[in-house]
């Protein structure tokens, strides 16, 4: 016996589960039908010219990697239920019913062949938000409970423990403590340190747990810069994670929950603004998607540390010597920060002041290629080979600059860049922007 989802019904419980998943997925499509994105779902002309704009298609040129094909996996489902021809003559327009098989195909396309970088949309012959359409596919899968396990686990970690790496609070406090000691030693100043849970400070600083667990020197650099600038800041020991894996999973409830927790911390600590560590999707999620998910404006500004660093340098709050960063430096533009986030120039202005020789990649800014590790792909090991293959474009971009250091204002990109540097034998060092600022700093105890 075959059920309405196109599968053999092996048990009534499994069948009920699948029916529930399909119903939830259809509810997402119904919601999208009432949004402007519906226009994008109905307007693709399937011209097939989007291929060269996509890093997956360029490195692995098979039809399944064409952005139009990936978007069609979503649009075909949408049109089945929300267009007249889809309901009456589905074959005429290629409309497909939501089945378990369709969800499997969609998962492969939306999670395994797209980082949501959005470059295809900028170059689409029609002008469609192709990544937005594919993201609808992720939402459908999230509603159906079909998010790949690796990504789902990170979302669960973040929801259950407050940070995506499930770092215990004691470990976080201990790291902050020894980094404070380290900073005191480096600066020779007793007032230097990493303040935690200090109410009434100007800034609540959010970090990537990767900094706490694996790359503490990045957090040390930020703390050193804040100290040199005389900044009033604090971390929260309860919620300090700038990332939002609910956003990667397109799980709107999780996204909103994680954003809400951060705002609660800001309220608890009575800070004046939230500054986000270098994180592409964290910025996109918190700065742009958060207010939309919560359907209200934030009570305080949310900004990237890049904007703050630029301000410090423009106002000459910091004194820097670019000769301390003498090697050629290039900049990788994280898609979520630049193409989706609008933070395009601050990092450039900062780098021009703190490094001796800054070389742009080609193309750059809004037109830059994704590193291949976006969209949560790093957490989905089943797509590891595709991810590394997709990184070939970035590897060539980096190689062409001749740079020895790649600055990237995103810890997620940094992980992917480290891998592709090793895989493609680039021999480059990956640094965050704040680390380069800290290296160039002329502060008491660091001169000469």
């Amino acid at each position: 016996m075959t059920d309405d989802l196109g599968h053999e019904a092996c048990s009534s419980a499994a069948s009920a589960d699948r029916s529930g998943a399909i119903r939830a997925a259809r509810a997402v499509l119904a919601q999208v039908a009432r949004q402007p994105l519906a226009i994008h779902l109905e307007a693709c002309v399937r011209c097939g010219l989007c291929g060269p704009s996509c890093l997956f298609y360029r490195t692995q040129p098979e039809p399944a990697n064409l952005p139009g094909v990936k978007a069609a996996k979503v649009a075909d489902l949408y049109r089945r239920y929300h267009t007249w021809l889809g309901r009456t003559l589905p074959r005429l327009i290629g409309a497909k019913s939501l089945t378990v098989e369709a969800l499997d195909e969609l998962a492969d396309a939306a999670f395994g062949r797209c980082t949501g970088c959005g470059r295809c949309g900028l170059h689409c012959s029609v002008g469609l938000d192709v990544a937005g359409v594919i993201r609808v596919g992720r939402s459908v899968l999230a509603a159906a409970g079909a998010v790949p396990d690796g990504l789902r686990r990170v979302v669960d970690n973040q929801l259950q423990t407050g940070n995506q790496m499930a770092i215990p609070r004691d470990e976080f406090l201990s790291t902050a403590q020894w980094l404070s000691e380290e900073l005191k030693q480096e600066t020779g100043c007793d007032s230097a340190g990493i303040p935690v849970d200090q109410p009434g400070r100007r800034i609540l600083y959010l970090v990537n747990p990767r900094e706490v667990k694996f790359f503490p020197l990045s957090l040390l650099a930020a703390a050193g810069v804040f100290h040199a600038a005389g900044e009033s800041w604090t971390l929260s020991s309860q919620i300090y994670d700038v990332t939002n894996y609910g956003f990667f999973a397109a799980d709107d409830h999780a996204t909103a929950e994680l954003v809400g927790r951060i705002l609660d911390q800001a309220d608890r600590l009575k800070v004046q603004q939230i500054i986000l560590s270098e994180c592409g999707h964290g910025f996109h999620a918190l700065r742009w998607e958060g207010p939309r998910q919560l359907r209200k404006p934030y009570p305080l500004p949310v900004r990237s540390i890049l904007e703050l660093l630029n301000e410090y340098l423009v106002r000459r709050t910091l004194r820097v010597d670019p000769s301390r960063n003498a090697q050629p430096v290039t900049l990788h533009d994280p898609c979520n920060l630049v193409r989706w986030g609008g933070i395009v120039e601050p990092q450039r202005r900062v780098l021009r002041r703190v490094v001796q020789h800054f070389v742009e990649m080609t193309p750059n800014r809004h037109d830059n290629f994704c590193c291949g590790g976006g969209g949560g792909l790093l957490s989905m090991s089943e797509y590891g080979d595709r991810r590394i293959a997709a990184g070939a474009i970035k590897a060539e971009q980096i190689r062409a600059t001749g740079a020895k250091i790649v600055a990237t204002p995103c810890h997620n990109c940094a992980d992917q860049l480290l891998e592709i540097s090793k895989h493609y034998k680039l021999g480059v060092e990956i640094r965050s922007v704040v680390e380069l600022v800290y290296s160039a700093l002329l502060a008491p105890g660091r001169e000469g």
Partner: protein
Amino acid sequence: MIPARIFVLLGLIWASLGLAFRLRAAGCGSRDEYAPRVGSATRAIWYNLTVGLWPGRKESARRHPAEFAAGLLLHVGVLLTLAGVGLLLAWPVLAEGFLPAIRPVLPLSLTAGLALFLRRIFSRTLRAFSTPDDYLAILATCGLLAAGMLAAGAPCWQIVLLLYAGLVAIYFPLGKLRHAVFFFLARAEYGGRLGYRGVYPPQATETECSSDG
């Protein structure tokens, strides 16, 4: 001719209502934003509907010059033919002069349309996700151009052009042809969103610069 004109008008009313229904359901393409604005949505929309369309800014066009030229030619022919239909409805006297004037363009447009049809048939990648509607839409468009050519050559074919245009209008809000309207709406919506965030209009890209520190 009068029944044919009425048929076209009814087709246009149908098409307008069909599109209006879809757009109303989609919130007329406007999106609620609660984050503070950084850039100008208006400037970005203007960019995305003008400069942003040209090959220098659009990789899909730059890397596929033949397809871009064919598409452009096809759409110019369709617009001219539709203008001819409009004149037949509103000012038939003007149409008598206009249709012969556009006659040299239409065979080129038809050739471009047929070339795009053949491309869809022979390209493995395109076949992988083409639907019957895709083939139907391009054939319907080529048919419109053919009818326009005939009407431009001999006035007795004008009634055929009108009846054909009426049929196309009925199909318009249902299938792929509606991209003629959605094209502008999608570019405006996406452009406006990126403009609000300060991404669009994009700044010129630089290749190298030295430290000013």
